[in-house]
Structure formats: structure tokens, C-alpha cells
């Protein structure tokens, strides 16, 4: 319970720090917000009025304090551009991004874990070297290129998928998965290599531990040794990396959602930046930060579950 409380406290501190930082950064973005709102042809009087209406005359801490006071009630403000409540807009888009990130992680792990096990069981073999080379290649290819190639081959050439668009799960579960498969592969492509390399290294180390030799001496089959003895102690690095990668993936959704025209939070964020729609941007940052911090919160908890020594240390 103390582990949970300390992590929760850390979560709140991070959210406050990040939201203040992002609020400050929005103020530092180049380009005048009022020009973005009114266009460069607005009169000075209109500019002054707009500045007042948007509270841009107030000091930054005052504006931030007002925003926090409203945000804790669930009111993230209203986009000056679309006049839509930010929380409503985020609510419409969050599931697309969540599903995209979740599916990407799932695909990445589903591919990376067997690859890592396969390579770790034969360290230094030609299979291990080929996989290592393949993973290096995967790390070197930019995500947008993967997205474009996937689209060109599987959507345009073969016609197996639609190039763009999102189907809600409630409308068609199959259509939903189909609409997100190519974007998920594009988003998770790099992670496959990362996860596989980390897990492979940890597994190789674990396979050299005494308890594994003991298991082998007992005549246990390799599959059982891997699944029941080696995988769990080897997965701390992978779990940590998976949590950290959520942040990278959230960043990647900006690109992937634009390329595949998905109505997600990444695209909303980039539109907010381009239009200096600071309340929309702030709302998006909060949600994305919360998501990232929560995932890492869960990862921290999982560390304790995976390795009892961590729980013991926390109690000291």
C-alpha cells in the first residue's frame, strides 16, 4: 500500500509539473495567439479586446491557476477555434488513440517476445545474427516510411485495407481491427526491434543463471524452462521499456494519425499547435501526460509484482 501511495503522489506531482510546463511553453510558442484567432487583418481595438477575452493580459501563474481550478472540475475550457468544449473533443478522440497505442503495443510484444526467445535460445548462431541485423534495420527505418509503404502495398496495390478512416468497435469489431491494423503496425514497427533486443539480452543472462541450469539438470523441457522459469525474471527490462515507449508511441500517433487520417488525439494536438489553440493543446497535453504517467504507474506496480525484492525494498 505504501508503494501505491508513493507512486500516486509522484503521479500527481508529475501531472502538475508537466501541465505548468506545457502551459508556459504554449505562451512561448512563436506567433501571436491573437493573430491566429483573428487573422492579421484585425484592428488593434479588436486585438486588445480579444486579448482581454482570452485572459492573455493576466500573468501566467494567474492564468494557470484559473485553468487548474476549472480543470479539476472536469472543465478543460472551450476551444477558441471550434467553440467546442475541449473535454468533449478529447472524449471523441481519446479512444482512437488509446486503441491505436494498445494495438501497437500488443502487436509489437506479440512479435518481439517470440523473436527474442528464439534468438536467446541460440545466442551467437546465424539465426541470432540475422535477427539482430533485421532488428537494426527495423530501428533504422523511419515510421512514416513504414506507414507509406504499408499503405502503398496493402491498401493501394493489394486492396486488402482501406487507406484511411476509422471504424468504431461498436459498429463493426472486425472493421475496427481492420481500420487500425496498418496504422498499428506502422506505429509499433520500431518497438518490435527494441523489445526483442532488450528481452533477448535479458533472457541470455537469465539462461546462464544457476537456477536455469538446475532446471535443465532436472530434465525440464526447454519450453517449460522458458515459460515457467526464465521469462518472468527476464521481463523487468521489457516491462519498463514498454511503459516508457508509451510516450514515444503517443508522439508517433501524431504522424500516424495524420497519414492514415484517423480522428485521434494526436491529430487534435497537432491541429491545436498549428492554430495556437492553447486551451485545446493544454487539454490534450494533460490527457496524454496522464495516460503516460498512469501507464508508468502501472509499470512500477508491475515491477513489484514481478520481482518481490522491489516490494521488499519499498517497505524498508
Amino acid at each position, binding site marked *: 500500500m505504501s508503494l501505491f501511495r508513493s507512486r500516486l503522489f509522484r503521479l500527481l506531482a508529475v501531472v502538475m509539473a508537466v501541465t505548468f510546463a506545457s502551459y508556459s511553453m504554449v505562451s512561448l510558442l512563436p506567433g501571436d495567439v491573437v493573430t491566429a484567432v483573428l487573422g492579421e487583418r484585425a484592428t488593434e481595438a479588436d486585438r486588445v479586446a480579444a486579448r482581454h477575452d482570452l485572459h492573455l493580459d493576466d500573468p501566467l501563474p494567474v492564468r494557470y491557476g484559473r485553468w487548474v481550478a476549472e480543470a479539476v472540475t472536469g472543465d478543460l475550457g472551450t476551444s477558441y477555434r471550434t467553440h467546442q468544449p475541449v473535454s468533449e473533443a478529447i472524449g471523441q478522440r481519446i479512444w482512437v488513440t488509446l486503441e491505436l497505442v494498445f494495438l501497437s503495443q500488443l502487436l509489437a510484444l506479440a512479435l518481439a517476445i517470440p523473436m527474442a526467445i528464439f534468438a536467446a535460445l541460440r545466442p551467437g548462431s546465424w539465426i541470432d545474427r540475422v535477427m539482430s541485423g533485421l532488428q537494426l534495420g527495423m530501428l533504422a527505418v523511419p515510421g512514416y516510411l513504414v506507414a507509406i509503404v504499408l499503405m502503398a502495398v496493402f491498401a493501394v496495390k493489394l486492396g486488402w485495407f482501406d487507406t484511411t478512416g476509422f471504424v468504431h468497435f461498436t459498429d463493426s469489431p472486425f472493421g475496427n481491427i481492420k481500420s487500425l491494423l496498418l496504422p498499428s503496425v506502422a506505429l509499433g514497427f520500431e518497438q518490435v526491434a527494441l523489445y526483442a533486443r532488450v528481452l533477448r539480452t535479458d533472457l541470455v543472462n537469465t539462461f546462464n543463471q544457476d537456477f536455469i541450469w538446475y532446471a535443465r539438470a532436472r530434465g525440464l523441457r526447454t519450453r517449460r524452462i522458458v515459460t515457467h522459469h526464465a521469462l518472468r525474471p527476464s521481463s523487468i527490462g521489457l516491462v519498463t521499456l514498454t511503459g516508457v515507449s508509451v510516450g514515444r508511441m503517443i508522439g508517433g500517433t501524431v504522424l500516424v494519425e495524420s497519414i492514415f487520417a*484517423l480522428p485521434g488525439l494526436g491529430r487534435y494536438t497537432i491541429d491545436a499547435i498549428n492554430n495556437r489553440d492553447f486551451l485545446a493543446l493544454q487539454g490534450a497535453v494533460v490527457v496524454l501526460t496522464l495516460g503516460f504517467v498512469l501507464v508508468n504507474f502501472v509499470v512500477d506496480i508491475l515491477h513489484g509484482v514481478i520481482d518481490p525484492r522491489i516490494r521488499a525494498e519499498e517497505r524498508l
Partner: protein
Amino acid sequence: MTHSRKRLRRITATLSIVALAALAAACGGNDPKSTSTTGVSDTQAPVLTNAPTTTIQGATQGGTLTVAIEGESSGFNPTADPWSNAGHNVARSIFEPLATFDSTGKVVPYLAESIEPNTDATVWTITLRSGVKFQNGEPLNAEAVRLNFAAVQANASFKGQLELLASMKVVDDLTLELTMSKAWSTFPNTLVGNIGSQVGYMSAPAMLASADGGRNPIGTGPFTFSEWVPDDHLTVVRNDNYWGTPAWLDTIVFKPIPDSTTRKAAMDAGDVDVYYTGSSSEIIEYQALQKDGKFNVAIGAPSEPDMVMFNTKSMPLDDVRVRRAIVMATDMSRVFDYLDATGVKQLTHGPYADTSFWYAKSNYPEFDIAGATKLIEEYVAEKGALPDIEFAGNQSPFLVGLQELYQSMWKDAGINVKIVSRAQAENITAVVGGKFQIIMWGGIGGGDPDDDYSDFHSGTGLNFSQFNTPEMDAALDKGRTLADADARKVQYDIVQQILGDGVPFLWAGTNQFGVISKPSVQALGSFTLPDGSAGQAITGGQFFLKDVWLKQ
């Protein structure tokens, strides 16, 4: 040809830098006398009919058309949400303008039956068609138009579209009298529903009164708003109570696809039926495929030119020899090759295409590298070494490449420029503040010369090149008071001569838009006016879909 006013174009001005490749503020055509008030007042009252038009042979009703658009809009309130081509293409299915272009580019009434000026164009009378209803059943009457104009005037971003409108009076149910603060001979151009002239679209009063109106648009158009999932799709369905000739399509789905590569892929994969592009190379590619019957390509008239703007108050660009030398050092054929636009873009020597009625030959320099070098040598001999000049653009790698091409050509004449790549918003701020030297710009020229009044006149605060002369101001002032096109052209010839001498801009060729469609999409280039005559279906990157039908 006629074009919209451009008050909001500056918002899209920097976007139109991107338009070198994809987006451009649009307007089509190069017809002459489109701005003449006689073009409006001479129009015969149309015969309204609900019978299917006889001009479209073999058309069948039904089907869903999916249209790829290049971006999402903030909302669909014509009096509050600024639209790019994407927004206009959606809006044109739901809303209709008071005026539009006929097939020759002349401004003619649409929802209005007539738009008549008094003798000095200080009072305009709009007479509406009878029997026109909004999709919610409200009538389109003089009060509704007044409310639309009042909403525009109440919006800080939009009120510039009606800056000369001093007062309005509802004369009777269908007649609205507008008094201007001074003569405004090109007022009907403002009503065509185009970039910078959204004031022409009429919204239902109930929609204007609703805080949520922009997300539940109600117009008089042939399609009724059905559903909008931002960043995913917007759906409209046929308005079966439409006041005019009903549309053929059951449904149109507009899909915002921001990435240009994906838009093209969606077209190639058959996921969308229609898309449009400002990319010359794509137009050329699809024209080749059209010969095999795989696609149809409709090309709009040339629109406003690409351009590079000089700050004529910034040393050394305050010396006309430097500006002339830059233009003379620019081999436009290399620019067109870089853009893969040879055969599509047209050379320009001023704000209007050389084929435009408004075009006047001037002293705008031709490519002459020896002459450019000589001018720079003269400058150096007189004023000392030529300092490096800052050349700003946005951060698109493709456009940075174009800047580098300019840079290399200008270097041949001894002009060194330093490329600065910034976010669009930063560039706009720099231009507004006069803190630039050379910049990739857009949104000037291509349409009616009066649209460029604020760009060229000294008294607007929006003449960002800061170049003008008293003679140019006088010609601009006089031009907007005249009704006769030929008399106006005399004034704008003067403006072009002065621009040709002073060279505040490097004109970099016309923009062309291509609308690409599947072979099953019929009548994309057709737009029938209420009187049965032909209207201009494609204006720059904007088009009407009322007459479009799908071949089964």
C-alpha cells in the same frame, strides 16, 4: 476573371506558400468584366423549377460520393469560421451564395434575383428570389440576409469583408437596401462565397442564433447536413425540399485527409471518388491516366500566382536595382522544372495571368543574368558591398528546396541570401510586423484587381511589401469607384505599370487546380444556375457538386 475579395486570405496566405505544392487560396478564371456591376444587374430573373435539369443527359438519381478534402474546418458557420478550399467544398453542398460566377466568370445573382447599385455605387439593393427556404423551413428573406450581414459585422475576424457597409434597411420581404460608406463598385464580388468572401453564403437565422450553429449548419443548399465527426468525416444528404433543381446524389461524404500522399493513395486505391490537387506533377500524372479511362481530370482556371515578396523598406531591398536584379537572376523555367509544373503552370509578369483581361504589359524584368549582375555591380560601386539578405519560408522540405534553387540562381548574380525556415505563424507575425526581407508569400493577384486594394494601397496597413506611390493609390481609389470594366482596366493598368517599375514582388507562375475523379463520377465540371444556364463549376480548388451524378 473574377475572384473573391481577399480579406481573409492573409490567414491562408502562408498556407498558400504550401500551396505551391498542394494548397492555394483559390479563385478561378480570367474573364474580364466579371466585376462590372452590369454583369449583375443585367442578369435576367431565372425561372425556378423543381424538374430535373434537361442539360444533364442520362443522369440517374442515387448513390454516395466520397470526396477527399485536405483538412478539417473549425466549424461551418459562414460568418465565423474561416474556410480553406476544404471548408468551402463542404459548405457549397449545404449553403448557397447570393451571387456566383457564370461559365465565363461573370458575377451573376444566385440566391438573389438581382443586385443593383445606384449611380455611384454607394447604395446597393439586393432583391431575393421568392420561395427559397432554408433546410429548417425558415424563409430566405431580406431580414435573414440582414441577420447574416450583421453577424459578419459583429465578428472581429470577418467584419473586414463588409468594411464599407454603413447601414442596412429592409425595404420589403425580399428587398434589402445597403448603404456604403463610400463607392463600392465591386460589392457583388464579395457575395460569391469564395475564400475571403464567405459573407455571400446565407445561413438560417436559427443557426446564427445558436451557439452551436457552426456544428449544425443550416443553409438553403441542395444537401442537408447529416453528421460530422471531426477529423473523420462529414456527411450530407440530399435536400428533398430543395427550392431549385434537386441534386442527383443521395449522400456526399467528405473525408479530411491532411497528408497529401495519403490523399493521392486514397484516390489510387479507390477509397474516395473525388479529390483535388494543386500539385502540377499529380495533374500531369492523372492526365496521362485519363487517356486510359482510369480517371477523369477537370482543371480549374488559373488562380492567383505564386510569389516572393520583398520588403521594400529593408536595406538593401530599398534599392530597386537589387529587387530588379533578383527577378532578372531568376530562371523561371528551372522553378517550373523543380515543381514538375512545366506545361501546367503559366508564367506571370504581374499579379494577373498574362491571359487575363486585367493583365497589362509592364517593365517587369525578364530573365537576364548578365543584366542582373550589372545592376548589382552598379549597386556595389555606389553603396559598397551587398549584404546578405534573409529569405524566409516555411519548414516544408520541398519548399526549402525551392528556396535553395532561388538561392543558387541569385548567387550567380552576386546576391547572397540566407534561408530562414519558420513555422507559418511566425512568418505571418514577421510579415505583419514588417520584420522580414524576402519571403515566400501568396494571396495577391489572380482575381479582380480591387481584391488587391489593401495589398497595394498605402493607407490600409496591410501593404506588407510597403511599396506604393501616390499615383498607384490614386488609381486604386479610382478603380473601385468605377462600374465599367474597361474604365477600371485603365486604372489597374497604371497600377501594374508602377508595380512593373518598382518590382516589390517576384511573380512565380499561376496556380492550377485539378479535380480528379473516378470514371463513374459524371458532370463534375457542370454547375447549372437557377435559370438553367451554365455556372462556373470549378473555381480554383473549389467546386459545386449539385449536378454530379454517378454512373451505375
